[in-house]
């Protein structure tokens, strides 16, 4: 029985005109005099600058590999012709020209596998087998030395395939090392803890370039006489050890976030140390730190540019090599830099967006 006077009110949709675009403009750009002034100043600068940039980069630009047209347009329009002319060296390095279909196929395969690994559908046990298979195919395609594929030494590998290979392999190989080091750093055994801590603090205190120098110059001294190590492998070992130290810290952060109660519960169930780690701690810890692992991957991807200092011609090095030697195209080097900056940006930005998506997924599973 309801008293007269109380009528349940049905929900109504919000009034359509809660302001609309004008209200948004007023609130966001002209809210008070300070905001309005900065809008006018910044807006004015942008309106002056952006059309000029667009003119230079698109409208007045030279797109074909025409040296004369480029020279004529110098200053007024960008010369993207330098890319059209040199893109194969920039992207594939010193790989023999006619064989460049091989790194192309290999890179596409590797990228496809990386992207596939990111999607939920592929998170099955056979993913590991797939990885091994794709990596094997990659190496066979790049190195050759089989009937039908000519041999191409590793110092001719370069450009984008090399960047992706270095980044992927070093993260993959660094992961198990980082896991062991992270567990070791939290161990009760003083010798192991000391060694792991020493490793991490030493590596994190020095720049990557010094490790790459060490790899280049000191590695040959470390090996018994007669055994020469490929420069690619040396550099790979250097980057892997570097990445493993940072990754170990990331994993350690995840391990620390597991409440002690979990370990105690596992102990009362009779699980051993390794069983506890494998079944209880690591699954939770790793899920929590996936975004940080993605960030490490993005860092490694950018850090591969350093190998150009030790004479491996990945993307940045390949650009220098392509343009420095050619006096004709040298004045347009800046356009070349912009091109590879765009490539790096696309890769890194996509990876960071993906990492944020993963973070949201992980948080969703933890919210009630």
């Amino acid at each position, binding site marked *: *029985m*309801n*008293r007269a006077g*109380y009528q*349940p*009110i049905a*929900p*109504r*949709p*919000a*009034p359509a005109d*809660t302001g609309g675009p004008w209200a948004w403009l007023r609130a966001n750009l002209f809210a*008070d005099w300070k905001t309005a002034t900065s809008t006018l100043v910044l807006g004015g600068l942008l309106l002056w600058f952006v059309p000029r940039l667009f003119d230079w980069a698109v409208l007045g630009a030279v797109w074909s590999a025409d040296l004369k047209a480029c020279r004529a347009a110098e200053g007024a329009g960008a010369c993207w012709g330098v890319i059209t002319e040199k893109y194969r060296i920039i992207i594939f390095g010193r790989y023999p020209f006619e064989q460049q279909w091989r790194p192309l196929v290999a890179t596409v395969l590797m990228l496809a596998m990386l992207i596939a690994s990111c999607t939920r559908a592929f998170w099955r046990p056979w993913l590991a087998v797939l990885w091994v298979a794709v990596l094997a195919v990659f190496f066979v395609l790049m190195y050759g030395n089989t009937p039908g594929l000519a041999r191409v030494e590793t110092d001719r590998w370069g450009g984008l395939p090399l960047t992706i290979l270095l980044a992927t392999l070093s993260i993959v190989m660094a992961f198990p090392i980082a896991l062991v080091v992270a567990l070791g750093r939290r161990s009760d055994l003083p010798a192991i803890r000391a060694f792991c801590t020493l490793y991490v603090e030493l590596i994190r205190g020095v720049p990557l370039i010094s490790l790459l120098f060490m790899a280049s110059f000191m590695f040959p001294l470390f090996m018994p006489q007669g055994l020469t190590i490929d420069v690619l492998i040396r550099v790979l070992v250097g980057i892997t050890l570097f990445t493993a130290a940072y990754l170990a810290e990331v994993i350690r952060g995840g391990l620390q976030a597991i409440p002690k109660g979990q370990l105690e519960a596992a102990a009362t169930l009779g699980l051993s140390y390794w069983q506890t780690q494998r079944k209880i701690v690591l699954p939770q810890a790793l899920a929590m730190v996936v975004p940080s692992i993605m960030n490490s991957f993005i860092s490694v991807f950018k850090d591969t540019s350093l190998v150009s200092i030790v004479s491996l011609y990945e993307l940045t090095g390949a650009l220098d090599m392509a343009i420095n030697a050619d006096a004709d195209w040298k004045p347009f080097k800046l356009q070349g830099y912009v091109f590879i900056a765009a490539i790096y940006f696309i890769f890194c930005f996509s990876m960071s967006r993906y990492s944020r998506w993963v973070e949201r997924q992980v948080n969703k599973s933890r919210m009630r």
Partner: protein
Amino acid sequence: MSDPIVVFDKVNKWYGNDFHVLRDIDLQVGRGERIVVCGPSGSGKSTLIRCINRLEEHQQGRLVVDGVELGDDVRVVDEVRKKVGMVFQQFNLFPHLTVLENLTLSPIWVGKLPRKQAEEKAMQQLERVRIAEQAAKYPLQLSGGQQQRVAIARALCLTPKIMLFDEPTSALDPEMIKEVLDVMIELAGQGITMVCVTHEMGFAKAVADRVIFMDEGQIVEQNNPHDFFSHPQTDRSRDFLAKILGH
């Protein structure tokens, strides 16, 4: 009512485009009146009182606080906030300042009082809530009940005309609820206007002049506590009371 201190006139609020959280609210709060707002969660009771000091903005209708209509004008909002004190469920004390500094922050920086005067006033309020000996401590060094009493004292330092309480005891352990409620009951006896969102029906019975029951964004029933608790007049309020008074 002759000179209400808060007037809600057909106030409507939406979250986004779809969630109609306050529906045609008509409410008047008299000066010195003590009001308890109750209802199931999601009924909009917190949103209602947060509109009074413009922590939430209403999209339709008129809302007048102490003669001033609330709108987008920032100066009006600042003026209103100086007259309205608020106590939050999560205390929201500033952890990097001592208890005394928490209380003197607004009087010094907004009220432009000299420090000595502000500190005297703060100590008076701390004594009022019986926690003066903790003045030099940091909030995280106090228990939950103590922190909430400090929060009440902080709001009182503005010499507000209205005190708003947003579920002040919901985040407290059971043994600390009493100390906070005692302070609120004392305050109620001193003539200040209070609007309190709470589940503590004992407090409502002891102190409130009016109980307002809200559900799904509208005021379903309002009555004096005695009549509300003994003769609820709608099915909804009957159901609600059965649930919370049952245990």
